[in-house]
């Protein structure tokens, strides 16, 4: 069972801007999975254990408007071939 959070973007420059912020935390780039609706094609994968830190960095440093990105929570069970994907909310800042 694989679980992760995914940021998708409305255009490439948004993806690049976010990647510059998040890659230092070890978040990786991946193509947008097919079951998510059309976007620029590049997404950023955030492991559950990185979630709090990645979201904090993203909210603090990226200047992206809410319409420019989407956020998902994904669980995929490769053995059963099942994927569970739901829109996710970023954790509220304290």
């Amino acid at each position, binding site marked *: 069972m694989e679980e992760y959070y995914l940021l998708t973007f409305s*255009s490439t*420059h948004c993806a690049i801007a976010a990647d510059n912020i998040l890659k230092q935390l070890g978040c990786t780039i991946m193509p947008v999975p097919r079951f998510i609706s059309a976007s620029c094609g590049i997404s950023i994968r955030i492991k559950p254990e990185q979630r709090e830190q990645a979201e904090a960095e993203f909210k603090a440093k990226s200047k992206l408007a809410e*319409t420019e990105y989407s956020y998902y929570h994904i669980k995929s069970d490769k053995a059963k071939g099942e994927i569970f994907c739901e829109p996710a909310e970023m954790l509220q800042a304290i």
Partner: protein
Amino acid sequence: MTSTKKDKLIIIIAGLVIGVIAASLVLFGNPKNMGFCIACFLRDTAGGLGLHRAAPVQYIRPEIIGIVLGAMLCAFAKKEFSPRGGSAPMTRFVLAFFAMVGCLMFLGCPFRMILRLAGGDLNALVGFVGFVAGILVGVVFLKNGFSLKRTYKMNTGEGLALPIIEVIIFALLLAAPAFIFFSEEGAGPGAMHANVWISLFAGLVVGALAQRTRLCMVGGIRDVVLFKESRLLLGFAAILVAAFVTNLVLGFVNFGFTEQPVAFNDGLWNFLGLFLVGFACCLLGGCPLRQLVMSGEGNTDSAIVVIGLMVGAAFCHNFGLASSGEGPTAAGKIAVIIGIVVVAVIGAINTARKEA
């Protein structure tokens, strides 16, 4: 992290289907090595509508209409139709205008570049090098923060405007009233076309497949360079292979630089033409095929690009900027150089400096 094997398989299959369709359209009557050419076909459509009066290239191409509508139908089916726009429309118009100048210098869009390669036209190889170079320059701007700013949600009517316009244009093609132009038999590429319904069907299939897989020639190279992600490029490799094999079977392959259909043998200008296309389309976020598909998804920024491409084509043929089999025109060469400068300026003024 790379695409799943399944994602790669899907785009390869889509590419193979598209390649066979593209090569087959030549059998059904489209010009050689031009089963699809977004630039040439938008130019022909501009001619059909009287936006230019170059008699050899006037015909409303159903392939274009099919691609937009096929993408739209596929988007609706997957609930991906998403009307949005408002991201620097005038800038996009200008970029699109000059992208078309570059395409008409090379005599093809990136899709036709692949099909020309599949027909043995080695001039397309020179063009390809220029295309990659243009994208690499565009990537430098992207990496430095080039952005045309955000898009905004639009209402459904706004998103449907271009698809509806395409349907009306198709009706004009079928009705053929006196004010719509048709190149006469033997006049040029505009007179060479497959049956209307075959062309439309081919466009619908390609549009749907391109929407499904996010196929984009510029994106393919950009994603390899920026993210080492090869999925899109594999799709185009599949198109190339399938078109080449189909061409071999149909006897359409002619290896070489000379005597190539709707092409010329001037390396520098084939290079520079597609350099301009790669550069402009990288800043626009997609090749002309991708722009057509996105306009079908409701993206009005892409619809503006389609308009800009058509106006650019009309301008090129009204002012002698387009090349022909004889080669580039002097005015066309100047236009390409101006285009490269303009695109570079647009790149510079829209690039936020990185904080030190």
